């Protein structure tokens, strides 16, 4: 469980996060939704300790992280898996080496066990026979999936994904969503997913935080979305014809 309270974060004079509070629950897929530029990535980077908020608390299962140095966060970070918006794969390593990397740095497994684990994780994200390709040789969607495999290879307690399925075809996107939900349940992880994809929201939105212009505007679950009368949320969710139609049919 991760609790955040009254997070404020600005860059220069620009206030990006204005008083955001929420609880991300263990064993659930927690979604952060909002328009492009609303501050989702910044929020996630605050959770990771990559940005330091000006005020507020961030507490990982009883351990506060705001104000702690990188050195003091090291222990916690070994329990975190992160999928960056652009994948952030290491260019100088091939797919296998990328996924292997956290194991090499932190696990005590034998070389064979490590490779087995790597192949298992790659298989889970539906990637096979790409082990020896370099990031520049695979598609955007494949990069995302390799990034997910790398993030889960150490069995993290916390999994953060910044738009894990943007740029993926609908079929693979749903596959990734379901995968994330499955492993979250299976390992009891606290998973935080940034997205503006309504399909994901309706698919795996077990707990949802909607932010607009850096403010916490609405929270609930996927079933609350349709019935909510929050105007901001309505504008965001029912911007597409498809969802407008669905709403009409439902009501």
């Amino acid at each position, binding site marked *: 469980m991760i609790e955040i309270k009254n997070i404020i974060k600005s860059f220069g004079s620009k206030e990006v996060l204005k008083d955001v509070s929420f609880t991300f629950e263990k064993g659930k897929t927690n979604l952060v939704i909002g328009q492009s530029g609303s501050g989702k990535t910044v929020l996630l*980077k605050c959770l*990771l300790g*990559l940005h330091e908020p000006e005020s507020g608390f961030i507490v990982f299962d009883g351990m506060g992280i705001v104000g702690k140095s*990188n050195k003091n*966060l*090291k*222990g*916690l*970070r*070994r329990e*975190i898996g*992160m999928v*960056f*918006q*652009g994948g*952030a*794969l*290491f*260019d100088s390593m091939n797919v296998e080496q990328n996924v292997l*990397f*956290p194991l*090499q*740095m*932190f696990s005590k497994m034998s070389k064979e066990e490590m490779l087995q684990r790597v192949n298992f994780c790659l298989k889970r994200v539906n990637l096979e026979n790409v082990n020896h390709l370099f990031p520049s040789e695979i598609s955007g969607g494949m990069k995302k999936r390799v990034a997910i495999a790398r993030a889960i290879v150490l069995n993290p307690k916390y999994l953060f994904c910044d738009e894990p399925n943007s740029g993926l075809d609908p079929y693979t996107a749903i596959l990734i969503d379901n995968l994330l939900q499955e492993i979250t349940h299976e390992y009891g992880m606290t998973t935080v997913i940034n997205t503006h994809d309504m399909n994901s929201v309706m698919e795996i939105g077990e707990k949802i935080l909607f932010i607009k212009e850096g403010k916490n505007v609405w929270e609930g679950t996927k079933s609350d979305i349709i019935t909510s009368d929050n105007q901001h949320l309505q504008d965001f969710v029912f911007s597409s014809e498809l969802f407008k139609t669905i709403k009409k049919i439902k009501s």
Partner: protein
Amino acid sequence: MGLIASLGKFLIFIADVFRKPERRSVMYKLVIKEIYELGFKSLLFVVFVSLFVGAVVTLQTAANMQGSWMPSYLIGYATRDAILLEFSPTIISLLLAGKIGSNIASSLGTMRVTEQIDALEVMGINPVTYLVRPKIFALMFFNPLLICLSMFGGVIGGWIAGTMSGECTSAEFITGIQYAFIPFKAVYAIIKTILFAFIIASISSFHGFYTEGGALEVGRSSTRAVVFSSVFIIVSNYILTQLLLN
């Protein structure tokens, strides 16, 4: 950013370089890899440049001495000192600041803007120790070897040019390069080289590491890396020469 603030940031950065690495075995491999990437791949370049500059230095020395009372073996002597004291340690280091410095800054800059450095940080790996330390160690170890090679290359280039042009005989040139040799001068050249290697690796890494923005800024960091390393090399060359040779 103010000069003092930049300097402070740089010192903290350098302190990080000398922190204990995550895994010693990994660090060892990384240094080897950087020696190959940064050092080994500069080998031909350095030898090529040195041969030609050595040749030019010899021809010019010979031209200046033409018709004078000075014995021809002094051509070899002057060539040796010019190459040993300045050309190899300083000029080759400046060229390497361009070649290696821009390589370091742009590769680290790209890693920064594509969030690869953040990814390391999130994994609990100190990105400075992991990425920068091996580069600095590799250059400080390998550049002296490169420079020694350059010295040999320069002298051989001079010898070829001198004998082929008929300015001096092979025996005269070889007498010249052995004439009044002070071993401390070679030590001085190596000390300079090690310092310059540190300057190239640390300043270029610093600029690359703190790149902000996108591809355009990576280019800018890389330019800045080359300019700053070169300026620092030139200035510290002057100071070191004062300190060590006088």
